[in-house]
């Protein structure tokens, strides 16, 4: 939970939202850079989305034991901005339209299994419970 229900517009909650905004802005720029690099070097934007999502899951798992002060900045903001469901959904929808079912399998169940694995592994390595 980011802030308690009913306390959304208190000064403390606004500071939390500012942390989310800064983290998400940075995460979005990094994601765009990763996807751009994969698109220009390998011609595969979908692999850039996958790489950004996996990196965000490693970060979210590793930061699971962080205190509540850094959670909005690092997990909700930066990792949330670094990862994207909309970008993935567009790539998968494009693959479905083109009949590239192997790519659909890679990006839906495949990516989810890998992402869950790296998230849990990062959480264990960081000292949290699996």
């Amino acid at each position: 939970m980011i802030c308690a229900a009913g306390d959304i517009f208190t000064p403390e909650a606004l500071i939390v939202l500012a942390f989310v905004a800064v983290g998400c802005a940075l995460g979005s720029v990094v994601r765009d850079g990763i996807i751009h690099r994969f698109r220009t070097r390998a011609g595969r934007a979908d692999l850039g989305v996958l790489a950004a999502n996996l990196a965000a899951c490693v970060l979210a798992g590793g930061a699971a034991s962080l205190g509540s002060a850094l959670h909005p900045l690092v997990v909700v903001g930066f990792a949330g901005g670094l990862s994207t469901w909309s970008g993935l959904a567009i790539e998968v929808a494009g693959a479905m339209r083109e009949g590239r079912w192997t790519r659909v399998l890679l990006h839906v169940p495949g990516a989810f299994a890998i992402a869950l694995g790296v998230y849990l592994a990062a959480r264990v390595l960081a000292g949290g419970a699996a």
Partner: protein
Amino acid sequence: MTAARRMALVASGGAAGGVARALLAVLLVQAVEAPHWSAPALLAVNLSGSLFAGFLRGLLEREQAGGGEGAAFDAFLLVGFCGGFTSYSGFVEAAAGGYPWITAATLVLCPFAALLGMHLSGGYPARPAGIPR
């Protein structure tokens, strides 16, 4: 468009999307008065974000087909706002905490939401011509 301008547009769109995600999640939990509704709230965020992104992608395709560039539109709304609004890491975090039905629904419905958005914008045909199955 310069790299600095694109970066500024993506960052501002991402910040707006992240704040919208956080606010919507809190407001939905508040509306149903049940703290354990944060995972369903994230499903609503990811579904609506995927639908909106598909719609924008279709509009962008139409703009580019008409000779326009649409780079600012792409950077601010599609990459920035929609990318920041939806969250794959939050989805995986929720999946690790349980919620098998929410997980399955997100995996199945988000790509179809994007596909629906593309069709609603009228920018995408059912299947591009010339690409074999």
